[in-house]
Structures are given as C-alpha cells and as structure tokens.
C-alpha cells in the first residue's frame, strides 16, 4: 500500500534521512522506532508531503533549501511531490507529533475540521460517535477551546481528529506521550482494534515494547537510516539491536 524507496531528505547542510526504504502492506500495522533525533518524524512528514510544503513556504530563504529525493508510492500512485492536502485526500493521514490542535477552535470544531473531507452528515455523525466513544473526555469538553485542554486530552483530540478524516492509511507519531497508563493501555487496544477494522497503520512510538508486540513488522531507524527491520522475534534475536536500540 505504501512504499518508500531510497528517500533522502536534506535540510540545507543537514541530512535528515539517508536512503530510507520502507514498505507497508494493506491491513498491516507497521512500527517505526528509534532514538531521539533519528528522523522518524521527518520520515512521516516527508511521506505526508509536509516537507515539500515547508520548502514551498520557506522558498527564497536558507531555511527553504530543502532537497528531497527518492520515491514514495501510495496505492500504486506516486505521491512524493504532491501537496499534502492531496495526499490527505487520498486517505493517507498523519496524526502529527506534538498534537497540534487548532488552538482557538473548540474541541468539537476541531473534530469537525478533521471531517473536512468527509461527505455526508451520516458519515460524520457515525465517526464522531466512534471518536466520542473512544475518548469520552472529548465529549465532556466539546465546547472548550482546545488550547486549554490538558496535555493528555489534547493527545486524544489529535487522535480523534485524525480518525475523523476516515483514513485508509493512518500514520501516527507518538500517540502515547502524555497519556495516563490507564488511557494508554486502552489506546493501544483501540489502535489494534482500528487496525483490525481495516485501517492500515504506520506507528511511531517510544514505547518500544508495546510497539513491537502490536506491530506485525517493525523498522528501526537510527542515524537517519533504517538499521534493521523485521518481526519482534527477529529483532529481539539480534543482541546488538536489542541493547543499543531497543533497550530491552
């Protein structure tokens, strides 16, 4: 469903991704783990078109000196070079790092904004119901301005908003940060559920143990490169990987 071939991203003099290749098949839940600053977020942004969009926004300055080479295919169609909103409309949706709510809009409006592309009131209602069911707190806070939510609540909102778009492939960047253990447990259960309901997922997570357990396959990104990939057992089998990257 998603195929990344030799993706290289450079910001001015810094190389953030170095010949990264990765594949996500339909219905899979793929994990992506790695240390801080490895380039996980950058990879997600590149796939969803934000890197190129950033280049366009910052053109004419040094910060806009961004190069992106390599190919990205989504459902057989080449998407590197497409603007992010087109990619999002194709069903590849990113739930961004640091949550990024529309801060002055209320929770409900945020969710409505998520459903921007969804046609029909029925579909909207159903998804909204689903999200509220998943995160009851959001319903309680529906009228609150989203910037004033607590960290965890914002995280839930970000996830809910991403789900509102009815994605085909959902990329989630660090969904569990800031969630209490209770909610976090539930969240992972839900993610698994969502995945089983037919939404393919690419999951970036810091909780390596959980991720590896849930994901069919996982990639390890370090130093801007994919250093290893495989099923949990395969990765765990390699002693160096286990110690230096997974800490298990």
């Amino acid at each position, binding site marked *: 469903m998603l195929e990344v071939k030799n993706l290289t991203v450079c910001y001015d*003099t810094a190389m*953030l991704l170095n010949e990264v290749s990765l594949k996500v098949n339909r219905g899979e839940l793929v994990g992506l783990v790695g*240390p801080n600053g490895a380039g996980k977020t950058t990879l997600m942004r590149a796939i969803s078109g934000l890197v190129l969009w950033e280049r366009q926004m910052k053109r*004419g*300055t040094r910060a806009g000196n961004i190069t992106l080479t390599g190919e990205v295919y989504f459902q057989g169609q080449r998407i590197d070079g497409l603007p992010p909103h087109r990619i999002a409309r194709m069903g590849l949706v990113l739930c961004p790092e640091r949550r990024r709510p529309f801060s002055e809009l209320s929770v409900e409006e945020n969710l409505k904004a998520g459903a921007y592309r969804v046609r029909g009131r029925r579909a909207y209602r159903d998804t909204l119901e689903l999200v509220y069911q998943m995160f009851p707190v959001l319903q309680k806070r529906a009228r609150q301005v989203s910037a004033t939510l607590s960290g965890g609540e914002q995280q839930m909102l970000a996830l809910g908003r991403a789900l509102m778009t009815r994605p085909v492939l959902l990329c989630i960047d660090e969904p569990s940060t800031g969630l209490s253990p209770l909610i976090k447990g539930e969240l992972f259960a839900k993610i698994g559920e969502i995945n089983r309901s037919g939404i393919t997922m690419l999951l970036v997570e810091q909780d390596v143990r959980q991720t590896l357990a849930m994901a069919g396959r996982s990639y390890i990104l*370090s*130093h801007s490169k994919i250093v290893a990939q495989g099923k949990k057992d395969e990765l765990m089998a390699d002693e160096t990987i286990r110690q230096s990257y997974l800490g298990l």
Partner: protein
Amino acid sequence: MIRVWLLRLYRDFKGDILALPGRTLACLAVLALFIAPLFIRDTYILRIITLTAVYAVFAASWDLLSGYVGQLNLGHALFFGVAAYTSAMLNLHLGLPPVLTIPLGALAAVMAGLVVGIPCLRLKGQYLSLATLAFPIILKGLVYLFKEYTGGELGISGISRLAGSRLVECYIALALGAVLCFLIWKITDSNLGLIFHAIREDEITARASGINTTAYKLLAFCLSGLFAGIAGGFFAHYMRLAGPFTLDVLLSFQAIIWTIFGGITTIYGSVAGVIILFPLMEILRAFPEIRMLLFAAVIVIVLRFMPEGVVPWFLDRVEKECPRCKERNAFTRTRCRVCRVSLSEREVRARTTTRA
C-alpha cells in the same frame, strides 16, 4: 607595546573583517561615506549624506525595538518627533545650544518610550503594533491643541544651526551615525541583546527562565527612544524646524520599509536599507512623475525575491555557514576557517542512543 597592540589589531582585522566579504564591503562603504564629503562641494549631496546618516540611526533604533524585542512599533516617529520638538523648544525658548538640546531631546524621547511602553506592556503582537500606531497621531492632536507652545501646524522654526557649514554638519552626522549604529549593534550583540531575542521569540518562556520581561521591554522602549531621539533632535537642528511632519505615519512607515528592505533583526540591514533606499529616492527625482511609483515597485519586486531583505540575501550568496560550528566563511572557501570541516559536505544530523 604599541607594536604588539597594532599587530593584534591587524590580526583581528584580517581575521574578523577581511575574511568575510560582507564585513569587508561594509567597511569599505563606511570608509567611502567618510571620505566622499571631502571631495564633494555640492550642498545637495552633502545634505543627502547627512540625512542618510540621521535616518540610519532612526531605522536602526526601530530595528532594536521591533526586530530584536519583537515589539513591532508602527508609530516610531513618535520618538523622532518628541525629540525634535523638545530640542527645538529648548533651543528657541531657553537658548540652549544643540550639544545640550539634542541629548535633552533624546531624554524626552526616552520618557516617551516609557509613556508608550508602560501601557503597551500588557499588549501582545499585532495589538501592540496597532496601539503604537496611535501614539504619534494622538500626540499630533496635542501639538495642534497647544499651538502656543508647539507652533501648531507650522512647527517651531528658526532654531539654531548645528555648525557653520554643511560640510561640518555632514561630518558630525556621519560620526554620530557611525558611532550610534555601532553602539546599537553592540547592544544587540551583548547579553542584553540575547535577552531581547528571547523576549521576542517567546515571552512566556523568557519569564519562566527568570527574565523580568517587563523591565527589559521597558528598557528596550527607552533605548530605542533614546537613539531615535538623538536622530530626531539632530534632524530638527539640521532642518532648523520641528513640525508635525516629524510625527507622520509615513515617517514611521519609512523606518519600517528601510529596515525590512535591508533585513530585519540585523541592525546592519536597517543601515544598509537607508543607505540604499534614501539616495535611491533622490536619484529617482530624474523621473518626477513616476518617482514614488518606481520606489514602491522596487521595494515590492526586491522583497518578492529577497523576502528576508537585501543584506541577508546578499550575505547568503557571498558567505557560507559552517554546518558544524556555524561560523561564517567566504563563499570561496572549501573548508571552514575555524573548524576546518568541509563546507560542501552534508552532515548527518542524527545521533545514537547512548547519551546523557
């Protein structure tokens, strides 16, 4: 002793100035500005040079407040005007000489900085900008209201001249301009400048870092007022007139145009902006009908392609930043002059896990 000192100076000069094309050019430009008047007897050109120097200080002071501290001031002419009026009144009514009236005028501008700064402390971002826009207009209203003292629309004329000849005035302006701009630049380069940067970037974080943002913002208003005030006082004595036009919205806009054209948050950018744009406006007198049109068009077109201003754009062409130590190097170099790292290679940024 002296030789060692001179040698040191030479080494610094070579290392810090000649090594970078931007700095070399700036030095040459300043040198040229200082030498040129000696050969020019044309009072008109002397006048342009003088006013350029005055406006350079004015623009730089705007940059200090707006570019560094982020208090985007749309009414900067207030400081200019307050100082111009104060200097003029002191000179005319009390007969004080310009050496006294200009500093006193600047002091008045500092007060104006406080008067504007205190109410503006609570305001943020665009609210602040638009509020500052109001102050010169309000003051202009007061100028008309108390015309016995301010001369109303006519302003205060007939104040004394700075010096006997245009040439001397020109040199005073140049010296003052060079010293003040350098001073402003030094301020922004110091710890104080760092705090200013911090306040601009994020006031709340600055507070959480233990910075008394209130005091520093006020300080910035006062400092900016001080420098703009010196420019204003000088201007009044040079024109021998302080009128409501020193409070014009368009004068405030000028400072902004100059600075942003040259490059905001750089000080040298604002100075360069004045040095380019002010004489340009005079050169365009050759086309009186479309002068303003050309001027505006130049700004639009230039900024369209150099959104950060002319100077940063230029520096980006002639200088490269070392990816590792962030020192700047002339574009001709292949290795960094400080850390010797290759300038053409891309650095892989990410690091391994084991840290802390």
